């Protein structure tokens, strides 16, 4: 029997309502208990002055494999994940080819097992090839390991196809993660439609374009009884729609990215495509509404929407650059720096949004240190100051909008299944 003790940290386990200094005892890859661990151990992690939390879950990442291995692989993405404190990542299916069959989902799981870093849970496409026309073999995807369905990167344009997808997903007991923007209304938009886009002469994507689609999908969730999860919500109006849907008892959940919680469309002045993503950075009022929605639980989860792109793709004229920024290695630091340390979000709620909440949405037995669970946990030094230097990232891509910022707080040790998979250099272990 192998025994690992994480000693003397502040254990924050929102699923168990736990927030106190304690030891965590791990035996044979599972949590044995939280409390004084008197018995001798094979390995000890000294967590005094640190937070010990359930392994973080990032429920929205793009690992680019298969198809774009030059910008990220499942292995490099998983290394980035564990360095960022994430023990589980949920991989979107907009690869090439798309993950729209049992075999393609199994491929993702196989590659993750080979990498042996973070756990990877695949999301299956709602429609074949993500074309928005016919449903994919969704039951086969579940057999292959898919935990949810999404055509992320594209909106399912036809309301009828979306209705059928929700209905079918409900039968399978899985959520549909919806990417929500009205392509017609967006026109050729490349940033938020507002004062800044008018000044820059860039075509804009209106908030209404997102909100119209969110409203449509909420109605479809109502008529189907399915679980709708709104991906990367970005506007005050969307927060309002989700809040009202929840108040009516609908099965609607939502996630928000760190960049939408921290940056605004003002960043686009200067035309640097590192600030180009979908949905686009919105206004300061939207950021405030997203923070409030996260505080009051309207928005359940924080997810990075980690979207790697090569410098060759990204360093072109703003309107030609692809959407997307990476986030696995900065999400925790940005949330701690801009939300927790600024007093905008309590530590337990912040951790919940990256552990218990995504686990609950996805219906997986993770995101807690409850005895008997897989021993996935993250040790965080909340006060460690560090400078974001993308050249040192494990991710193969560098498109990080927080480059050069000094953040306060980061993961220093990541444990997956009782195995210490990563420890920050120079940290006592």
């Amino acid at each position, binding site marked *: 029997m192998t025994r690992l003790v994480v000693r003397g940290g502040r254990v924050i386990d929102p699923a168990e309502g736990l927030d106190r200094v304690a030891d965590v005892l791990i035996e044979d890859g599972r949590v044995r208990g939280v409390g004084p661990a008197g018995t001798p151990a094979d390995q000890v992690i000294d967590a005094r002055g640190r937070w010990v939390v359930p392994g973080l879950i990032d429920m929205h990442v793009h690992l680019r494999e298969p198809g774009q291995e030059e910008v990220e692989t499942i292995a490099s993405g998983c290394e980035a994940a564990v360095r960022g404190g994430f023990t589980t990542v949920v991989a979107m299916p907009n690869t090439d080819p798309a993950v729209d069959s049992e075999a393609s989902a199994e491929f993702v799981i196989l590659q993750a097992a080979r990498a042996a870093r973070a756990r990877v849970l695949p999301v299956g496409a709602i429609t074949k090839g993500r074309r928005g026309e016919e449903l994919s073999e969704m039951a086969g995807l579940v057999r292959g390991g898919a935990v949810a369905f999404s055509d992320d990167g594209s909106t399912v344009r036809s309301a009828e196809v979306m209705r059928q997808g929700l209905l079918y997903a409900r039968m399978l007991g899985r959520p549909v993660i919806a990417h929500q923007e009205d392509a017609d209304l967006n026109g050729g938009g490349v940033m938020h439609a507002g004062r800044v886009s*008018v000044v820059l*002469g860039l075509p804009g994507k209106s908030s209404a374009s997102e909100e119209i689609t969110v409203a449509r999908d909420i109605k479809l969730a109502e008529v189907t009884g399915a679980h709708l999860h709104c991906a990367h919500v970005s506007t005050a109006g969307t927060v309002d729609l989700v809040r009202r849907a929840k108040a009516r008892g609908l099965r609607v959940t939502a996630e928000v990215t760190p960049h939408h919680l921290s940056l605004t469309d003002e960043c686009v002045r200067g035309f640097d495509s590192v600030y180009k993503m979908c949905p686009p950075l919105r206004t300061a009022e939207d950021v405030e509404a997203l923070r409030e929605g996260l505080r009051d639980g309207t928005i359940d989860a924080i997810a990075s929407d980690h979207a790697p792109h090569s410098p060759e793709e990204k360093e072109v004229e703003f309107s*030609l650059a692809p959407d997307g920024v990476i986030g696995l290695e900065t999400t925790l630091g940005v949330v701690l720096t801009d939300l927790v340390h600024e007093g905008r979000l309590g530590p337990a709620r912040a951790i919940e949004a990256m552990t218990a909440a995504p686990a609950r949405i996805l219906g997986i037995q993770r995101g807690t240190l409850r005895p008997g669970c897989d021993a996935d946990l993250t040790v965080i030094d909340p006060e460690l100051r560090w400078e974001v230097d993308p050249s040192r990232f494990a991710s193969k891509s560098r498109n990080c909008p927080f480059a050069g910022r000094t953040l306060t707080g980061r993961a220093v040790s990541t444990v997956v299944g009782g195995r210490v998979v990563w420890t920050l250099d120079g940290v006592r272990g």
Partner: protein
Amino acid sequence: MTRSAGGPAWNRRHLLGLEGLSADELACVLDTAESFKEVSTRSVKKVPALRGRVVVNLFYEPSTRTRVSFALAATRLSADVVDFAASTSSARKGETLRDTARNIEAMGVDIVVVRHSAPGAADHLARVLDASVVNAGDGAHEHPTQGLLDVFTIREALGRVQGLRVAIVGDIAHSRVARSNIWGLRTLGAEVVLVGPSTLVPAAFREMGCEVSHSLDDVLPEVDVINMLRIQQERLLAAPFPSLREYTRLFGLTARRMARARPEVIVMHPGPMNRGVEIAPDVADGPRSVILRQVANGLAVRMAVLYLVAGGRPAAREADPRRAAAPRGEGREVLRGAAARTGGAR
């Protein structure tokens, strides 16, 4: 990078837009342009201010008057001019804008004049090049030399800019000319009223300090300047208004409408004109039109801009990648001499 050859008010290596330029900086360009305008009246229409310098016209969009105007301006300053025309589509397939520009720069170019369909293209080049960058129009963002020549023409015709009321009429949403005019005019103390159909004049422009109107007839009696923008018929596919006929009926500047305007009003158009659409021929060629003066002034303004952004830097040295760090004294003297010969740059 700072220098003083252009006078204390000009301190910039690039001209990317009129947003953010101070009233002093704008006045500096206009005053410099005035001194250069005199050059056009000489029998030998040339000064040695940029002798030995290389200016490249990097045009990714078709343009006649802006490209010729820049080429002529550079020639009159005795610079060598290279024209590089590339279609955006072929560039998209192969070499990036950044690579193209860096390759051209490697041949020893001092100033890159760029026209491109992507907003921010000039900003993008300014980040990656050592050469000076002059924006000759980037998508719907800015067209700063057009804005400057419009302001120059207004100042010349009416004696001032401060306190004037200027109407800009047409497709404001897609117009870089409108944006550069707005910044220049607002900074120099003019009032700007934007006129056009609601689909082409978004209310968000109010946040740039403008008024917005959808009635040309209401606006005409109260303005000192009418700047008619070109209706870009190639954009009609997006259907921002029902028909050209209806557009002309509501917003075309006809002689009949002109009767509502003040007698001293001036009529401008950045060209190329759609005669009979946004402007009637008899108005375009009429007594209140300053359209051809705009073109003539464009040359002087572009001479001033090239002169100012090049100010004080030594000529390009072949095969010396560190030329930006080379000593500057000599170049500065040459420019000061040139400025003196053209009646001074201030």
